[in-house]
């Protein structure tokens, strides 16, 4: 019996292929179809051509949500990269008790996103919130703060909460990259008289750039479609201050029940996600 029978590998993949065809590619096909149908649960379903896309691009809320998600995405990705990098850089030198430290490090990743939203709502509670109290204690504010009730601050609060759930993943990727850098490189540089900062800039940074790009790509893509944590935290409010793009789609499906426009918006989300991926792949390819 030959091991490299060309059919055997395919046979092993058959059950998975059925899943992917029925569960993923068929719904994706439906998504494309529905984006060309007028299905608003009021009028009879008819073919709409590009009507849904026109409606989408003429919708003021669509553009508003697009602007909100841009701010949200940049804020979350920046905070996640900064936090993840700081954590990874300190964790890589920790030898004693690393198991415990690492467990704490990934804990927020394992909490359901919707539960994170509930937890942060409680943390920032205007009446009994622990964050208000801590900020008062260190003298930054004088009276309790209602961050999710404040039009200007709500976005900051949402970014902090969302980054909290994303920092662990970034830290894991960066830590894995840092651990694979050979210590001899640092020793050699030390002998040559390079300082800590120049060692970081000329050895560490170039070597972890690849994995850092992957972490950035995934964080950007995933925060662009954030929805779980927004639902319990602010539901897009106050006054649409945190009405990100994911929430726009959510509203079309749950509230306005305009399935045609929801499908068109879903297509647009897929297009944006692919665009983000393409940009990152292009940058990584050009740099190497």
């Amino acid at each position, binding site marked *: 019996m030959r*091991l*490299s029978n060309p059919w*055997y*590998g*395919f046979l*092993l*993949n058959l*059950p998975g292929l059925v*899943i*992917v065809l029925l*569960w*993923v590619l068929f*719904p*994706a096909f*439906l*998504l494309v179809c*529905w984006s060309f149908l007028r299905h608003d649960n009021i009028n009879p379903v008819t073919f709409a051509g590009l009507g849904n896309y026109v409606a989408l691009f003429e919708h003021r809320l669509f553009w508003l949500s697009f602007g909100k998600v841009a701010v949200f995405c940049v804020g979350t990705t920046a905070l996640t990269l900064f936090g993840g990098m*700081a*954590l990874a850089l*300190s964790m890589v*030198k*920790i030898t004693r008790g690393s*198991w415990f430290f690492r*467990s*704490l*490090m990934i*804990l927020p990743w*394992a*909490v*359901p*996103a919707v539960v994170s939203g*509930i*937890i942060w*709502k*409680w*943390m920032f509670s205007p*009446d*009994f919130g*622990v964050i*208000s*109290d801590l900020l008062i204690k260190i003298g930054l504010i004088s009276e309790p703060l209602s961050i999710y009730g404040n039009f200007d601050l709500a976005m900051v609060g949402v970014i902090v909460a969302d980054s909290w759930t994303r920092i662990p*993943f970034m830290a*894991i990727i960066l830590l*894995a990259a840092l651990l694979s850098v050979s210590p001899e490189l640092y020793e050699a540089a030390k002998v040559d008289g390079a*300082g800590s900062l120049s060692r970081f800039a000329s050895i560490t940074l170039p070597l972890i750039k690849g994995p850092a790009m*992957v972490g950035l790509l*995934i964080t950007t893509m995933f925060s662009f*479609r954030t*929805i*779980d944590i927004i*639902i*319990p935290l602010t539901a897009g409010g106050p006054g649409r201050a945190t009405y990100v793009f994911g929430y726009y*789609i959510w509203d079309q*499906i749950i509230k306005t029940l305009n*399935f045609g426009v929801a*499908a068109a918006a*879903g297509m647009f989300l*897929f297009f944006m*996600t*692919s665009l983000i991926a393409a940009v990152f792949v292009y940058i990584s390819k050009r740099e190497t």
Partner: protein
Amino acid sequence: MIEKIFGSRALPYTTAIILLGLMMLPMYWTTVTAFKPDEETYVFPPVYFPHNPTIEPFRLLFEDYPFGSYLRNSIVVTLTTTLIVTAIGVLAGYGLSQFKFRWADTLLWILIFTRIIPPLSLLLPFYLLISWLGLVDSLASMILANIYLTYPFAVLIMKSFFDSFPRDLIDAAVVDGCSRTGALVKIVIPVSATAIASAAIITYLWTWNEFIYAFVFTSTPSAQPVTVGCFDAIGDIFVNWNQMCAGSLTAALPGIIFVFVAQRYLVRGLAAGALKF
């Protein structure tokens, strides 16, 4: 001076403790609130260390809300999904990694493509599909959805582990008269137990933590999982925050346990799956 600070051995521990301390604040706050009586929950400034810890919030949670049935639904959905995804994923990962066949590259690309499609985009068509099948408000609807959400990542994790599997071991088994399937069952699966565990644990957690599909597909406690149950409780006009925290803690429990018990598997699996992306 800079050299002294950055070279010191205490610096990494100090920064790690400060950063992790900040990150653990929400976990700490949820945990203490879950064990507080009402009069220590609704005060400002808040009570940092409960004076009279109580399990009353947990008791009320199971009394006032159908939390027992939420938990049962979550467990059934999660175990079924994990079992199916792991079983099919092992076969697919083994096939993709160890055998050269014509459609191998295409299959791999389809899997990566699947990971790029945002789940939120497929929510509507998936809902239409579920309603055509008459599965609205059933456990089956969530099992189907979670298989879609977790399968591609599980296969990519296992493929990347099988890629580094010593090929000689399989060849030797085949020479000794083992069939290819026999080699998979007797050699590959036992040796790769940790890899399979990584994929299974991540599948388990993702399914348990899933919210938006479950929220749209289910409407009664007979099918709602614990994430939806928690959120429904917050929808009330008055939020019982200590019960809410008890519920959140219960919903986060599998995650907390796996993080401490199986941390190595989680880290390896996430890193392997991510770099395949």
